[in-house]
């Protein structure tokens, strides 16, 4: 069997799994097209994230464990782009916040300038410390009252600065830009680090980003969440109330509820697929070009690549920014799909390590691999719970209805989800340690 055939088959298997989810309620499938499409949609988003991570790790060997942070920034971009401005918030605290941010930036810039320009010594250190302290105090003095003013405006329902009120689709590229900007800043400072050190640094930065999102209510409403974000697709309820659609659904043999929910999900699926295909094409073209070759050279041996005239620092920064931007886009898409920004939900296990599992299981260094991994792992993440129920039922089929162990197992089915997830992960990695579609 040729590799291409084998790999196409793998994709076919995942496609069949998702189709079966809609077609049959045999075993752990639910037989609901809605459920199938929900999995597909998040699968598309996951695939995009995996693509971004693969760009960084598979192409360039950058161990970025801060995916969560960029995803969250993408989410923030949706709020800042698409929600209407909060009435009164800008006039209450906008200028103050802006001034404070400028002040903060100035402080950092002058500290950096001092580091660069002045000769090393006690004087320099003292000056830098002084700049930082004074800057910090001024910053807080400007910042604190302004955000208080903003947060005081209808705190239960608003309390944040709001957004620009632009169409929500624009927020996807904006999410990419925001993430790219953050990645640029991070890359400038932290990309000198290697392997696990870079990993923990990016992890830390992601935690910092989340801490900001969770606690800066003026910006993101913090843990109070921003709900009811605008959508790029119609609302189901509106479709259900639109006779034209109702008739159309009826002509397809569907009741309005089913028709409208599927219609909306298909709409998302189409949009997400477009993004995925575009990004996949771009990544694939890049990988197969001299650019990709250069990146692999850098990944293999930085010292030698540098001696061969490649500007490793610049290239690392480039790919770090690109990969993060892709994660930002995916994050924005996800927030749009959820219809809300929930800073409290970002945690590394789900938003960083799960994505890594996708990349590694799919096959790092191979774009198709990571896309496959994205779909497959997401499917499993959702489906291992019913699977483990099946598994338990099967394992305990010999036991009595009231058997203690059996009851205990069934009671703990949700925890068995993680257990099963682990098991499957180990099995996949066992049978193809280089991933399902390995790098050539």
């Amino acid at each position, binding site marked *: 069997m040729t590799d291409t055939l084998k790999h196409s088959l793998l994709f076919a298997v995942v496609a069949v799994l998702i189709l079966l989810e809609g077609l049959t309620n045999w075993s752990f499938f639910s*037989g609901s097209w809605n459920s199938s499409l*929900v999995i597909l949609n998040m699968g598309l988003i996951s695939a995009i994230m995996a693509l971004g991570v693969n760009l960084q790790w598979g192409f360039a060997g950058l161990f970025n464990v801060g995916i969560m942070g960029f995803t969250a920034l993408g989410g923030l971009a949706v709020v800042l782009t698409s929600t209407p401005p909060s009435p009164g918030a800008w006039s209450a605290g906008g200028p103050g916040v802006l001034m404070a941010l400028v002040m903060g930036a100035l402080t950092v810039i002058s500290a950096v300038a001092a580091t660069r320009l002045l000769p090393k010594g006690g004087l320099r250190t003292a000056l830098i410390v002084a700049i930082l302290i004074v800057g910090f105090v001024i910053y807080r003095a400007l910042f604190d009252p302004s955000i208080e003013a903003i947060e005081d405006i209808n705190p239960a329902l608003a309390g944040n600065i709001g957004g620009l009120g632009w169409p929500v689709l624009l927020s996807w590229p904006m999410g990419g830009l925001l993430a790219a900007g953050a990645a640029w800043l991070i890359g400038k400072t932290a990309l000198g680090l290697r392997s696990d050190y870079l990993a923990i640094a990016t992890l830390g930065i992601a935690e910092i980003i989340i801490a900001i999102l969770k606690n800066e209510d003026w910006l993101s409403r913090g843990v109070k969440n921003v*709900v009811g974000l605008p959508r790029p697709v119609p609302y189901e309820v509106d479709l259900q109330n639109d006779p034209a659609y109702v008739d159309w659904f009826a002509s397809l043999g569907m009741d309005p509820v089913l028709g409208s929910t599927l219609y909306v999900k298909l709409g998302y699926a189409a949009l997400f697929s477009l993004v995925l295909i575009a990004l996949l094409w771009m990544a694939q073209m890049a990988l197969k070009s001299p650019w990709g070759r250069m990146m692999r050279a850098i990944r293999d041996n930085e010292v030698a690549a540098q001696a061969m005239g490649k500007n490793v620092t610049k290239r690392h920064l480039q790919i770090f920014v690109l990969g993060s931007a892709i994660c930002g886009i995916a994050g924005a898409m996800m927030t749009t799909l959820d*219809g809300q920004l929930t800073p409290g939900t970002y945690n590394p296990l789900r938003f960083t390590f799960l994505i890594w599992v996708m990349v590694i299981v799919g096959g790092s260094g191979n774009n198709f691999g990571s896309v496959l991994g994205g779909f497959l792992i997401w499917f499993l993440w959702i489906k291992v719970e019913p699977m483990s129920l099946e598994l338990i039922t099967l394992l305990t089929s010999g036991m009595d209805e009231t058997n203690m162990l059996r009851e205990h197992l069934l009671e703990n089915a949700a*925890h068995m989800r993680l257990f099963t997830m682990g098991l499957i992960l180990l099995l996949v990695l066992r049978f193809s340690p280089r991933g399902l579609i390995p790098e050539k």
Partner: protein
Amino acid sequence: GSHAKEVKLGVLIGFTGPIESLTAAMAAGSEMAMDEVTKSGLLLDGATVTSVRADTGCIDNGLAVANGEKLIAEGVNGIVGGDCSGVTGAILQNVAIPNGMVMVSPSATSPGLSSMEDNGLFFRTSPSDAREGQVMAEMLQEKGVESIALTYTNNDYGKGLADAIKTSFEAVGGEVTIVAAHEDGKGDYSAEVASLASAGGDILVVAGYLDQGGLGIIQSSLDSGAFDTFGLPGGMIGDSLPKNVGSDLDGSYGQIAGSDSQGAEIFAEQAKALGFDGTSAYASESYDAAALILLAMQAANSTDPAEYGAKIMDVANAPGEVINPGELGKALELIAAGKDVDFQGATGVELIGPGESAGSYREILVKDGVNTTVKFR
């Protein structure tokens, strides 16, 4: 009428994730209501109620929505859930509203959810922050407390409650020396306690969960001698707290939603008989959530969410005969006979506005290592 003999209720909460230690009791609570109804044989001519559990991970919107769809696919007639506000919002917007499914959350308190166009499908049995803040402030004032340090669990519940307490307490002239967040699920709270202690205050009000960060904060404060009296809002009231902390907690006080109908005690007792802790946070709210759905079904004489959704407010509020935990059979009978009921449940349910819960509070004092009810507010 000719009804399906099986009513399915989804229980969609975070069996894994940050509040996994609470959800077992929550699920048990709602299933207790379902069993009670099934056993009574009175719901819609003897329908049986079965529970379908599904996980939200508490903080995983994707998983929660997918599992929501799964419940819909399995044909549930109503959903008890979600738990954490984030996933609750996601399920509500992406599953419940599009599919016209009634959802009663036992624990989501975010005011943001109230503002959502929910088409009368979303309800919650957890009390509103604003009211609880007032109750707490009143109580503190009566006790002669002049200043408090305040810590909250960093989620929408904690944040909202802390805001409410601060506003209300300052409105009655009290001083809040510090408002510090703490994260659940982290074991070490030295930093928080250090800052709280430094800020000082007559007592420390802990707007958290009794088996999460809240416990850690109290333990740490007692150990280091930072505070010895604590103000305990609803999330901190439960048998496990005095048990875990020991006699040092004596003298601390707080409040929890509940009427003088003894609902909470009855519920706790029954829960104990079934082998779970009925005083665990949100267990009683979960019971009430499931019960409300079932009673509304009876009132609408239908399991269709579009029909019984509108009845939830009716069965929850006065007028009508007061219904306590364990009296669901009686309630079903009354409703079938065309009479009004006022479901009080384990938490003294009272729904106001767009599906939010309000109502009376029980003042609790920790005495000799147990929570005792002092009076009702």
